[in-house]
């Protein structure tokens, strides 16, 4: 609980904890201060442009053929569930990537000044040149159709760093009280957490492209348990995964209604008897959160071109799309019902940008079209990797704008864009309609997906599974899981829900050496799979 009541809080007026009232650590000393003295003045400040240019010039003078620079200023605010412990973090970073003699070099640090920018520029090129004793063909980068650059701020309704943080604490305190008053809620089990990041990202390259963007990533979690003498059920609100929004993710007018719906569902679920899993093949209704998780891991990661070509083999793994040239356009890996696209332009998507970390405006591509692999997510360097493929077909390569980095300290990599699984609006079925069509099957409501390192097979771990008979849930099923081949599962899809019940889910993506984490969103409908191998996850061989 907070130690501040609402009236007292409102009485504070402007004298509150908020992002705008806090000096940006380190930046004041560098002179990067807003004229009103209240905050950081962003990219239009010529100082940032000058710093970037010094780094690029130093790298080019040292022998680079191409250079790009990223500067980031990142603010984080977190409220942990245990006692709502607040944590606040701010950091800046500058990273220079340099191309020379067919090799990439990269140098980064947390110091923003002219001498450091010059040192990093020289260092990045020297790192690339260190490899030159082994001659390799030059890396060719695709052209930039729009190299003008510009500035863009992700639109959010409530900037978490522009409102008093007491307001968020107070709001969450109220939410806790609201939940505790719901029927049969065990108050000690209520957990509410909130975190938000605002990152200002600057990009400048030897193409003279200059970009400023301000990005947001907000997430939260609300869990609680309802119980009576018969049983108990865990409620985990599924709409609070990482998203490209502000504090409105949790602070909105509909969230209490949404919690009530989940709460009522949990009350009904706990009245159902529990059965041990009966191993076998079942028709399965997968709820949208599991569909999204499955798509993120099996389609998102596997269609990153660098991973498909083996550039990630020593780290997170490879891809079953191990011969992109042969498989693109020919590999059938899903039911004809399945259409999945990748883009970074949808409102609320966590990877949404106007330009990626290579200065490319992201394009929307079809990844899976009527069950066939038709697109891969590629960086500018993909032009070199796929040159022969495109020459043979007389087609043009286009980078997809999928390059990202966690901060200026990290080097840029391909991370899956946001994915959209096309819903079936012809039949426009709700989850109740989909369930009603199942005579004898299972419903996986909540769970997790764990893929192998090539993303070709996986394990579904059912957190909340129900037996369906004649279109109704009749029992809870304990310890159910599923093993599957990626393409078999997607090929076995027989029905999709309508777009009315499509929900956005955000997922972390870990990649690279050293490892870094970026995020993407997946929009998923509910889905019915004709046959899945259902196992007891606690049973050994």
């Amino acid at each position: 609980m907070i130690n501040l009541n609402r009236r007292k809080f409102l009485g504070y007026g402007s004298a509150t904890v908020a992002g705008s009232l806090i000096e940006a650590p380190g930046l004041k000393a560098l002179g990067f201060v807003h004229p009103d003295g209240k905050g950081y003045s962003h990219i239009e400040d010529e100082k940032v442009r000058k710093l970037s240019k010094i780094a690029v010039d130093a790298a080019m003078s040292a022998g680079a053929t191409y250079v790009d620079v990223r500067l980031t200023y990142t603010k984080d605010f977190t409220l942990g569930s245990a006692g709502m412990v607040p944590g606040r973090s701010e950091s800046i970073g500058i990273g220079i990537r340099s191309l020379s003699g067919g090799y990439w070099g990269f140098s980064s640090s947390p110091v923003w000044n002219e001498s450091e920018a010059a040192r990093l520029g020289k260092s990045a090129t020297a790192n690339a040149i260190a490899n030159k004793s082994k001659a390799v063909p030059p890396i060719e980068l695709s052209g930039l159709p729009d190299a003008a650059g510009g500035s863009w701020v992700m639109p959010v309704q409530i900037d978490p760093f522009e409102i008093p943080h007491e307001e968020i604490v107070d709001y969450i305190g109220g939410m806790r009280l609201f939940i505790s008053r719901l029927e049969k809620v065990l108050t000690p089990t209520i957990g509410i957490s909130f975190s938000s990041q605002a990152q200002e990202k600057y990009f400048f390259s030897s193409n003279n492209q200059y970009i400023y963007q301000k990005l947001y990533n907000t997430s939260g979690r609300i869990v609680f348990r309802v119980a009576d003498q018969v049983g108990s059920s865990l409620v985990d609100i599924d709409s609070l995964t990482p998203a490209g929004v502000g504090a409105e993710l949790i602070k909105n007018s509909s969230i209490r209604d949404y919690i009530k719906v989940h709460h009522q569902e949990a009350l009904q679920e706990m009245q159902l008897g529990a059965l041990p899993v009966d191993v076998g093949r079942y028709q399965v209704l997968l709820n949208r959160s599991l569909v999204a998780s499955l798509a993120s891991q099996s389609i998102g990661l596997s269609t990153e071109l660098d991973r498909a070509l083996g550039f990630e083999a020593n780290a997170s793994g490879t891809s079953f799309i191990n011969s992109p040239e042969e498989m693109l356009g020919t590999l059938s890996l899903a039911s004809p019902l399945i259409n999945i696209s990748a883009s970074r332009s949808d409102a609320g998507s966590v990877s949404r940008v106007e330009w990626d970390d290579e200065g490319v405006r992201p394009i929307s591509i079809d990844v899976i079209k009527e069950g066939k692999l038709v697109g891969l997510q590629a960086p500018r360097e993909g032009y070199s990797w796929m040159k022969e493929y495109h020459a043979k077909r007389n087609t043009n390569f286009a980078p997809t704008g999928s390059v990202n980095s966690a901060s200026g300290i990290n080097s840029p990599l391909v991370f899956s864009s946001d994915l959209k699984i096309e819903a079936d609006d012809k039949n426009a079925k709700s989850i109740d309609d989909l369930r009603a069509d199942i005579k004898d099957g299972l419903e996986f409501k909540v769970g997790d997906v764990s893929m192998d390192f090539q993303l070709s097979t996986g394990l579904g771990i059912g957190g909340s599974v129900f037996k369906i008979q004649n279109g109704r849930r009749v029992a809870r099923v304990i310890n159910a899981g599923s093993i599957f081949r990626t393409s078999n599962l997607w090929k076995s899809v027989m029905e999709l829900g309508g777009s009315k019940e499509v929900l956005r889910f955000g997922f972390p993506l870990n990649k690279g050496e050293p490892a870094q984490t970026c995020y993407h969103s997946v929009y998923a409908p509910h889905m019915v799979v004709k046959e899945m191998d259902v196992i007891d996850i606690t049973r050994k061989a």
Partner: protein
Amino acid sequence: MDDTVKILNTKAVQAVIDQVKDMVRRPGSTDVSVFGWWGMGQRWARNKATLTSDQRDVRVLIRHQVEGPVSVVTNQIDSDSIAAACRMLGSYLDRVSPKETFIDMMQEPVTHNAPGAEVWSDATFNRQALQNAEVVGSVTDDAQAKGFLASGYMENAASSVVKYNRDPWGREFTTSGQITQAHCSMTIREAKGNGSGWAGGSAFDINRLDASKIAAQALEKCTLSLNPVRIEPGRYQTILEPQASSFFFSDIVAGLQRSSPEGSGGGQLYLETDMAVNRHRSKLGLRIVDERITISHDPTDPVVGTHAEPGFEAVNLIENGVLKNMWVTYEDSLKELVQKSFIGIRSSFRVQGTETKVEEMISTVKRGLLVTRISNPVSVGMLYTGTTRDGLWLIENGKLTKAVRNFRWTESPWFVLNNVEELGQAIPVFTPADIRRSLERSYSSSLTSIVAPWIKINDFSFTSTVDAI
């Protein structure tokens, strides 16, 4: 921060701590951690260097607790930034500090420094990108000559930390340390994906890492793993290489944290709760794993030791299968009022091996499997499930006979360590601790070094085949 240094120097750190001490003068306890790291990485794939990087960063964590902890983190150490961070902390403490029970009991401070090991290497710190690039040129040539594709990562890194604490009674404690780390790992794959081999190693001194040997091992495994055949899942007598066995040992060691008798208890390390007094009792003094297993932590160990730090002393965690000691956090030691000092949680340990060579272990297997490495383990209840990766072979009548398609396995670390048929030689394994994230955890516990043995297990459970090679 001086833009020419790789990691923070003592003078800069002391200035930060002095400023915070001066600015945060409130009742309660104050912690300041100043952490700096540098890493030089060499990444390669498809037989070619793909990125040579030099990264460095700083984190200053200021944490104050009156009724509940509030923390502020910045990566800027100039006085204006630290002043802003302290003001920010003050604002949060004034406005949104949560109410929590504060531990209000006195405890004798732990002031003695246990001896530490040599964990700094100038060779690692001064390593140049050119030297790493030469290694990559050589190892990729070998793979290329065989028509394979080599990928890998080599890193030399250094970090320093200073931690200051002022407790609610005004007593001050400062600890510090610096360490270097070197890692090298390689995956060599057949060009069409019909075989894959992996090898890796870690040490604080890069001179202790033999990249050529690691490359040769990965190459040999790739060659031996070509065209794997499918065999039935089931229970097999299984030899786990130290890289694979270390996962099961690590899981047990990570769980050896002692909680107070009033705590939740439960799990394999506790006896059933005594309902009469509503207290639970740990299994200290009881045998919990095979009697041939001894796991120890010694800060002075030349391979798995760490820098000197108060409260961290040599200790046998499991001795001949018997649970001898459990990690105790400072807070728990306060709650229990049972110890003057405490054993901090660390993830570095040594499992005692034997003189038995792997060839001898293989020679006594009638039908079994040899596992190089495991991947993506996830917990399902009291079990873990994951896959094998980068080298799995069938052993028949004492010989490796064929490469086998990878399996998903489902097993309990407790079952594994209670079904040991044989222990082999113990060697250091690849432990790429991410020093960049050390601030989020205890610095000491994040510096992982493990020496683990080959182990032969009866009835290891392989639950399904996987397509991945």
